[in-house]
């Protein structure tokens, strides 16, 4: 219903012109304006100021000192930074893969017809309805060496006297990851389930008639159908995982040592406990670079699936 101004006046403007001047375009920008102003103020402006700040030495109180690219040069050769970067990437990508697989498994179970299916779905969704802070406190207790059920089971089964789940540098990151997976697998479960409902049943029948096995049908029908859903969920979830703060901050604070440290917690500590706002901003910019690179490569690879028509 775009009114073509060119048509009304009896001549054709080049395509670009009527795009910009059409009524639809004007309404489009008008409706978008409040969102753009709001995001400009609380998102884009702070982002730019954060990037600007990364060129200064600043403790939050005195005068900022211009240091140019010094922070970035320092970061590049800084082993601690690279260790934490590695932790962050392992945390984000390993947890997304695990939660996607568990979500897929539950989706396959729930995709059958059986009595109590909706109750089962609701119960499995429950972890998603618990705030991060409660999950963090709860899992700290589960991992408690003396009182916690996890070591309790290990002792009952006679496997060991108990593991220092979040107290040892060997297991801490993995243990927190378990809590994060527990909270998020329902997300994948539900979206996979919705995706499976969209697959026409006669596809499976045809495959069955052609003599293909269940596993073949799963590989050649179910998985391709689930791909678009999986692509979007994986993108969002990996960005959210890279950005996640609460569980790690509350469960270990990044310790012992830096063994469970990830970038968001580290940047917070640097900026607000050590008063190194400039250096913290530079690390945050490095983190932004990683997230943008990953996000944009992903969008390029799966443009159609994410919906950039």
């Amino acid at each position: 219903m775009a009114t073509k101004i060119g048509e009304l006046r009896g001549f054709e403007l080049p395509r670009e012109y009527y795009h910009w001047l059409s009524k639809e375009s004007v309404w489009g920008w008008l409706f978008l304006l409040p969102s753009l102003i709001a995001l400009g103020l609380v998102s884009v402006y702070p982002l730019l100021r954060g990037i600007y700040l990364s060129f200064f030495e600043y403790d939050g109180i005195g005068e900022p000192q211009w240091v140019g690219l010094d922070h970035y040069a320092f970061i590049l050769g800084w082993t601690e930074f690279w260790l934490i970067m590695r932790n962050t990437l392992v945390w984000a990508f390993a947890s997304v893969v695990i939660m996607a697989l568990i979500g897929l498994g539950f989706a396959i179970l729930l995709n059958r017809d059986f009595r109590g299916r909706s109750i089962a779905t609701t119960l499995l969704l429950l972890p998603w309805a618990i705030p991060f802070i409660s999950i963090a406190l709860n899992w700290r207790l589960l991992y408690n060496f003396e009182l916690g059920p996890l070591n309790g089971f290990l002792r009952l089964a006679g496997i060991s006297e108990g593991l220092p789940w979040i107290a040892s540098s060997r297991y801490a990151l993995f243990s927190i990851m378990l809590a994060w997976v527990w909270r998020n697998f329902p997300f994948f479960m539900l979206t996979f389930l919705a995706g499976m409902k969209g697959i026409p049943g006669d596809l499976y029948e045809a495959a069955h008639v052609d003599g293909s096995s269940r596993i073949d049908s799963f590989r050649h029908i179910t998985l391709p159908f689930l791909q678009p859903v999986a692509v979007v969920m994986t993108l969002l979830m990996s960005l959210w995982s890279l950005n996640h703060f609460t569980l790690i901050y509350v469960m270990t604070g990044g310790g012992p040592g830096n063994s469970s440290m990830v970038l968001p917690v580290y940047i917070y500590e640097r900026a607000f406990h050590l008063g190194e706002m400039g250096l913290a901003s530079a690390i945050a910019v490095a983190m932004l670079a990683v997230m943008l690179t990953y996000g944009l490569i992903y969008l390029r690879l799966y443009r159609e699936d994410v919906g950039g028509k």
Partner: protein
Amino acid sequence: MATDTHTTSEESTGFLTERRADLARRAGFHALLWSLIAIVLSPVLWMFIVSVNQIGFQSFIDDPAAWAAGADFSAYFRVWYESDFPYWFRNSLIVSLGATALSIGVCTLGAYSIGRLRYKGRTAMATFLLITQMFPAVLLAIPLFLVFQDLGLVNSLSGLVIAYVAFTLPFAIWMLRGFYENLPQSLEEAAMIDGSTRLGAVVRVILPLSAPAIATTAIFTWVLAWNEFIFALVLINDSQQQTLPPGMGEWVGQFALNWDMLMAGAIGATLPMLIVFFLLQNYIVKGLAEGAVKS
């Protein structure tokens, strides 16, 4: 004749074993499914058990009767009367509701614009919104803290509401946009032929139709805000102005041995989300499912 009977009996036993196998398969399926569900839910159960009577796992297994005899809700009263929990709870409610109202008000028009109108720059705007999801929250928190310090907005709940728009708004627009794309294209055009303006058509035709989708988006926005930790940690210093997540995060050190209190608080912070979850389950399931499938 004899062979005939033989075959029939063999067939019938074959039929029986098949039924039996089917029953066994179904029983196996249910056993597997429900034991997995029990495992998934056990952390929640443990949270409740400890909140009504602090106990170690070993002693609980040894003597559950002693635990049941001592069970009461006193930890919940201590949480409410002997800590800043009630302030945090109130502040969390205010901030989450405020951020949700603000972003829903703004995002409805924005999502309509991106989801339904065809104009140059639309795709770029949609991509921009997705990119804002890639901004690390800490990177925004540092400059926001400096700006809020200059504006005197540190320790202010309304300042926090404004900051929350940074992550609630793009998510809300992204989620609602998919819904608008799937409405039949001719709806508001019919109203416009009857002489209404674009805005009038949106308000009278599109908004009522999208009420359920807006409600779903509001729930998800509210959940995001209820969970938010880092902005509150950075922008609020005064404990009584704090929200639940950072407040309870600091609490751990203070009450390190009172696990009943910590678990009572954890359940207290969960309650509003549980209520929303059980009341609006169907919307949530649809929202989670369609939000992703349709984007």
